[in-house]
């Protein structure tokens, strides 16, 4: 049967027959890099048009409908425009940091791709501390934003960057605690272990209400971590023009823009992996017949379906809720999300010890 893992294995076999092991490894790394960059480009195009269409329909508008069939080529046209635009560097800016920041944003997004399982047995790097790796790397995201804000030599940019720093540092806590809930249940930090532990039902169903609360906290926290509305204080068009990327133009701006969407994809992929079973089809306990029927749907479709569902939910948040003020934002984290997720973690731990889950 056709699958991503078959393609990867065939490629690996052919390469090992043709080249020596070192060469094979190098060629495979190049392939992986090209595949990740290709995925980034495709994701950028798809998510931007998706965002614009979703926002339009939620606001009773039509959205882009001129370029290509039903406006579906609009984001391609926008990308072409950004490619030919001049990438301006302001005179007063710290030129080295200013030009480095967008690449850091992209590199962080690329690093986060490593432990994500896109399909059954199709993963770049199944390291044994996958979840820890993800939360460690995703906190580097703030460095590129702070770097961009600081080096722009612009008050709006600095303000946006500082807000973003406060926001990401605080929301990382509740994101981490809600991820811990799954880790406690699974007893492993490895992504493939977490997915295999959901073979008889996804954690969101197996873990009763505490897991549902963990899932909701996770979604809220990652929405804040990716700087999207209603937590988009780092950009806040109406207050800070464009926040940390006010001074950026052309392809450097496009890299920030792309990094935002790729980050959304990554956090949704992680959410889907931890709570909705990643590529694991929808299984109910021991109903073998039902489970076999579900297995006929390819695992990559399950993964991308769940991920895009979560992306849709995050877009739904963005186009429904008004932006929070900075004090409301920090209140929400420190007074509500953090205590709730801490107590929730306690309950989940008790459940894991007493084996109250399915």
């Amino acid at each position: 049967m056709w699958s991503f893992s078959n393609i990867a294995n065939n490629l690996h076999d052919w390469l090992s027959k043709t080249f020596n092991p070192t060469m094979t490894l190098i060629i495979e790394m190049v392939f992986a890099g090209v595949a990740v960059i290709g995925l980034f480009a495709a994701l950028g195009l798809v998510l931007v048009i998706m965002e614009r269409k979703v926002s339009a329909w939620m606001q009773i508008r039509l959205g882009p409908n001129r370029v290509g069939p039903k406006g579906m080529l609009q984001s391609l046209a926008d990308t072409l425009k950004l490619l030919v635009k001049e990438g301006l560097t302001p005179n007063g800016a710290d030129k080295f940091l200013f030009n480095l920041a967008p690449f850091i944003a992209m590199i962080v997004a690329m690093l986060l791709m490593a432990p994500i399982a896109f399909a059954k047995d199709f993963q770049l790097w199944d390291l044994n501390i996958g979840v820890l790796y993800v939360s460690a790397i995703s906190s580097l995201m703030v460095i590129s934003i702070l770097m961009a804000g600081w080096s722009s030599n612009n008050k709006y940019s600095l303000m946006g960057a500082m807000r973003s720093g406060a926001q990401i540092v605080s929301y990382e806590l509740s994101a981490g605690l809600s991820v811990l809930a799954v880790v406690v249940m699974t007893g492993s930090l490895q992504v493939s272990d977490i997915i295999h532990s959901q073979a008889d039902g996804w954690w969101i169903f197996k873990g009763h209400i505490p897991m549902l609360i963990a899932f909701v906290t996770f979604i809220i926290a990652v929405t804040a971590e990716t700087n999207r509305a209603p937590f988009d204080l780092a950009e806040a068009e109406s207050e800070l023009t464009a926040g940390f990327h006010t001074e950026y133009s052309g392809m450097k701006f496009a890299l920030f823009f792309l990094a935002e969407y790729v980050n959304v994809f990554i956090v949704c992929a992680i959410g889907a992996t931890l709570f909705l079973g990643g590529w694991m089809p929808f299984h109910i306990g021991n109903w073998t017949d039902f489970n076999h029927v579900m297995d006929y749907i390819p695992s990559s479709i399950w993964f991308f379906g769940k991920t895009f569902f979560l992306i849709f939910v995050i877009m739904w948040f963005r186009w429904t809720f008004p932006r929070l003020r900075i004090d409301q934002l920090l209140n929400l984290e420190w007074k509500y999300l953090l205590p709730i997720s801490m107590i929730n973690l306690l309950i989940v731990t008790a459940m894991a010890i007493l084996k109250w889950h399915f």
Partner: protein
Amino acid sequence: MFITKYIKDVYNGVKSLLVGMKRTMYYFTHHKEIITQQYPDNRETLVLPERFKGEVVMPHDEKNEHRCTGCQACELACPNGTIKVIFKNELTPEGKKKKAIDKLVYHLELCTMCNLCVEACPSDAIVMAQTFEHSVFDRNDLTKILNNPGSKIMDGVE
């Protein structure tokens, strides 16, 4: 009690957020609610909302009569000097002199479509029209005279 208030706050917050999400999901799934007008394409069939404000006009009836008494209420109400009333003296059938409007000059280029003149008018002589394609090549074309040449005030309008 603190804990009950806390839980109530969380419950009410989540509930009101869900109400908002329900509304946007309704709009997302019901495309018939879309209010966008694809203007140049549907120019023939374009239906504007009833209260759309395009420009100030003075309606005349079939006998070329308008309802303007020349009271200047619109001129006074206008915040940026868009309307100017120019008078002439008319002789009534009894031989008395009566003030009437000669020209009601309307500067479309100054108008902000605020509707204050229409609301100030005591005799409903001016209304807002729904025309909106106002671009012209000469700026002078934007200065309009609202009353038709040779028009008179309608009988019974004081």
